[in-house]
């Protein structure tokens, strides 16, 4: 785990994979469903809902965002950054790509 932190990995995940990355940093491409003061609710590329704890929601104005953050529970992430991904994103393509990046064939490329 310390090795992961040294290399500053933040694997791309969908909601189903969050449980495998408790306490680690991930990237979650998602659609913003609901914005609250300290938390937003998003839909991950596999359709699962995830709660994202945020510092400030002023930076979130895109429909789709990529949350970089630390996994707290299997459905909660504490955001370190939210990157705007625009108003149009093919979530099936995103999800298929994410699943491929976890394929053992590409282990040396993504982990």
């Amino acid at each position, binding site marked *: 785990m310390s090795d992961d932190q040294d*290399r*500053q*990995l*933040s*694997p*791309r995940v969908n909601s189903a994979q969050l449980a495998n990355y408790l306490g680690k940093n991930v*990237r979650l491409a998602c659609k913003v469903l609901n914005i609250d003061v300290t938390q937003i609710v998003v839909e991950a590329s596999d359709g699962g809902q995830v709660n994202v704890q945020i510092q400030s929601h002023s930076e979130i104005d895109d429909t*789709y965002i990529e949350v*970089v953050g630390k996994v707290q529970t299997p459905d909660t992430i504490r955001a370190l*950054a939210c*990157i705007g*991904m*625009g108003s149009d*994103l*093919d979530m099936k*393509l*995103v999800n298929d*790509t994410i699943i*491929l*990046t976890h394929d053992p*064939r*590409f282990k*040396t*490329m*993504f*982990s």
Partner: protein
Amino acid sequence: MSQFGSGGGNFYNNNGGGGGGFETSPFGSPSRQKSDVAQSLRPFTIGQLQQATQLHSDAEWRVEGQEVGQVTVVGQVVSIQRQPTNHVFQLDDGTGLIEARRWIASTDEDGTPKDEIAEQRYIRVTGGLKSFGKKRYVNITSIRPISNSHEIYFHLLETMTVYLTLTRGSPHKGADGPVVKGEGGSSIANYSSQNAAAMEQFSNLPAFKRSIVQYILSQATREEGIHVGVIARAIGSSEADANQISQALDELMDEGIVFTTIDDSHFNVST
């Protein structure tokens, strides 16, 4: 693209880059190979670039044994340091961090407005891999913001495609070759080379079924398609008798790939 002039011998040189195409074959005469690869451009993840090794500070970089020429990466800008002579971008693509450095020439005209390349945004950089001390960085020849987020995922898929092609060979030449050669005859072989793109959608079929589809396509200028007997004569061989062909045709029909035309014995390919 005028900055990508004809490359000098040294591919680390700022204007020695550009060029197109990927390294096609890992086998070849080493001396020629070097200059070919040096001029080639390959998409990478940052994690791959951090694994790259070189024998000495002047040698070519290698990733898992493959020589590296010019590289292109897509990453999120973590930090920007703008210095008088160069700009340094720290990039993160989820697989690692790397610096990308852009030298500012006095005559340099940067077509990209500064505010488009800002922290937190995704950008694509292209250039040569260099090292300074223990640190490695990409010496930027081209830099631009990602304006459509799909490009981030395109890049990931492209890195995977290129990786598989380089480590396992092209999908259309590797596994398929022997079958086409063995049963196809020259007309099919010619056909497949001319219409490789049209055949792409059938590349997931087993070789035997694919050769049937390939044959029908090569003959199908008539709407009524091809008689099963003609297919059998063209494809048939000792191990592929008429029963196998009719069974394969039935399965192809169930899969919606072929259909019967004027009667139950004539087949054509759905398009």
